[in-house]
């Protein structure tokens, strides 16, 4: 059997891609430039599309190709481009100011990844042929680190990025557990995520216009 038909090879490929996805996520926590963060998100989405395509190929699930294509077009290309344009348009400072400093954030992200492995272990069944629990562990790690990024960052745009990372984690979970949700549902979720990002971008633009800042800690007049 040639190696590109061997499911074992497919599994290894997917595990490697998933590991890269996790590395990118931690990179996003670790570095401070907004533009790099957006590009890292783009690359991460590209890797997710690659994982989806690999799964489609080795499991002969043609509908997953569509999902991979959607991910590639929207999440890997269009969304990062749109976000970069937004950054250029509102002329914000390019640096991210996390609440917890970078080394501690990275260590914490590592701990969250460890926790994700523990959670994913409970899903593991040795008797069952599947994608292994590695991919699921990465998915849960993305989800948890996305949460952490959400609370650790004050800029409105970085919160949107964190939300998109959460969403990437979900996507990976869905695809590693069940080869993706049914196509029409997946498309609907995609549409919702896109519209949500668009609306949030408009909202950021208006917040920037009104407050002359994107710092969400300034959004603190409503209390009690």
């Amino acid at each position, binding site marked *: 059997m040639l190696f590109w038909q061997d499911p074992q090879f497919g599994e290894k490929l997917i595990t490697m891609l998933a590991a890269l996805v996790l590395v990118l996520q931690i990179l996003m926590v670790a570095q401070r430039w907004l533009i790099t963060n957006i590009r890292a998100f783009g690359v991460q989405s590209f890797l997710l599309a690659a994982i989806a395509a690999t799964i489609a190929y080795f499991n002969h699930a043609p509908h997953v190709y569509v999902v991979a294509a959607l991910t590639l077009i929207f999440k890997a290309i269009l969304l990062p481009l749109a976000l970069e344009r937004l950054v250029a348009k509102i002329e914000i400072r390019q640096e991210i100011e996390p609440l917890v400093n970078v080394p501690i954030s990275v260590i914490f992200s590592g701990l969250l990844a460890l926790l994700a492995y523990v959670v994913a272990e409970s899903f593991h069944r040795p008797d069952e042929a599947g994608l292994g629990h590695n991919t699921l562990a990465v998915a849960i790690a993305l989800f948890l680190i996305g949460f952490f990024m959400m609370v650790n960052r004050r800029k409105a745009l970085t919160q949107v990025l964190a939300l998109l990372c959460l969403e990437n984690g*979900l996507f990976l979970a869905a695809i590693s557990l069940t080869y993706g949700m*049914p196509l029409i*549902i997946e498309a*609907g979720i995609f549409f919702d995520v896109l519209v949500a990002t668009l609306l949030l971008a408009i909202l950021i633009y208006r917040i920037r216009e*009104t407050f002359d800042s994107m710092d969400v800690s300034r*959004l603190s007049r*409503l209390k009690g």
Partner: protein
Amino acid sequence: MPILVLLLIPLVASAASLLLRNLRRMEAAYLVSAAGSFAAAVWLAAQVLAKGVVEWAGGFFYADHLSALVALLTAFVYLAAAPYAVGYFRRDVEQEVFGNGQTGAKLRKYYALTPLFAFSMLLVAVSNNLGVLWIAVESTTLASIFLVTFYGRRTSLEAAWKYAILGGVGLSMALFGTVLTYYTAHQVLGGESLSVLNWSVLAGSAAHFDPTVMRLSFILVLLGFGTKAGLAPMHTWKPDAYSEAPAPVAALMATAVVNCALYALARFYVLTERCVGPAFVSQLLIIFGLLSIGIAVPFILIQRSYRRLLAYSSIDHGGIMALSLGFGGALGALGMLLHMTFHSVTKPLLFFCAGNAQQHTGNDALKKGPGGLLHSLPVSAPMFLLAALAVTGTPPFSMFQSEFTVLRAGFAAQRTAAVALFVAFVIAIFCGFFYHIANLVLGPPADLPRGEFSRWKTYPVIGLSLIVVVLGFWLPAPVYALVDGAARILAVQP
């Protein structure tokens, strides 16, 4: 067929508002869509009562008693808010709230987005597929973000940001829960077909699902849809959004959205209960329910703004519904759904009165603001007091009956401690709420002009007040049949 009509009417109205040039025609399209949606919801309810289950598009859309009840309540609030909104915005236009040249665009935004908002809530009620259910709940957030920023104040942007981000995070958890449910269902039912996510299919085989996965799934769904319903501690967006949105939108959010989120939660509740037994889900729902009721208490007692007061009251009532579902059994489900029904009638009345008062006095302050509204608002002010009594569960109003049912459900489930806390919280909330509203309405006259603005704003108030009073003594048999049928769906023992 009724499902198709129900979904199409608000969609068409939304599109029409984008095309129409004339403000009066936009208002007309909006009013017609509200009346049409309500008629379609009544039609759907009648069909469900006659046939049991209505399906469309091969089971993709599905309505049983529970769906029909939620659709009916949503359409009812949509209908009640329609004439009120017309009057409310005419008053805004007269006061030149929007600045020059902005009026048309602003109102078009309202008349286009609100039907879309109603559409997504109706879709929540009739979608069988759990994936579509999630998409619909997410759409309710998307459709309403720019209704929260309607007035474009700094505080509205702040409220909308919290609403969008918390809603987004919450719903991503709900989606994770949905994915997990799909995963375990996939293992049992197999196949790649769409029907594996259909609730009607899942409910039949939930007993064979993996209990670990279902537990995790339910926790995520509870946190997710709980955020949308405003259960504590994920409730923080609620007072902000409710006090910044225009009053008719706030009325929709405080009733119909809460209903939809709890409806989605209830669907997962049934699946999880059938898989892992009632103890686990009950425990969680009771904790979150009591926490929501409890957290409302201090904020209601010290509240300074009556719009925010209403938001905390809505957190309290969402908590009561979750608590009742948590008590379980036939009585618990009945208590939850009765409370949902009565709350959906009473809460819009409060928001309308609050909106009238706010537009009349120009602010929504409780302590520093002018008291003695009774002297300047001859209709809205006394009805405000009546609605405050009704919503805090004072007899003979209907919410007393539903809260009493919740109480009985608690005793039947032998949760005495939870019941004791519940009663203590409800009494404290009654005192705080009534004290604030009484101060606002009674009190010495402030020098404000006397008189209501227009019939558009007073007739909905009078109409709803009549319904609230009548419901205290008489619940129409078909409505009760619907509630009862829905309660059976939530309370079934397999």
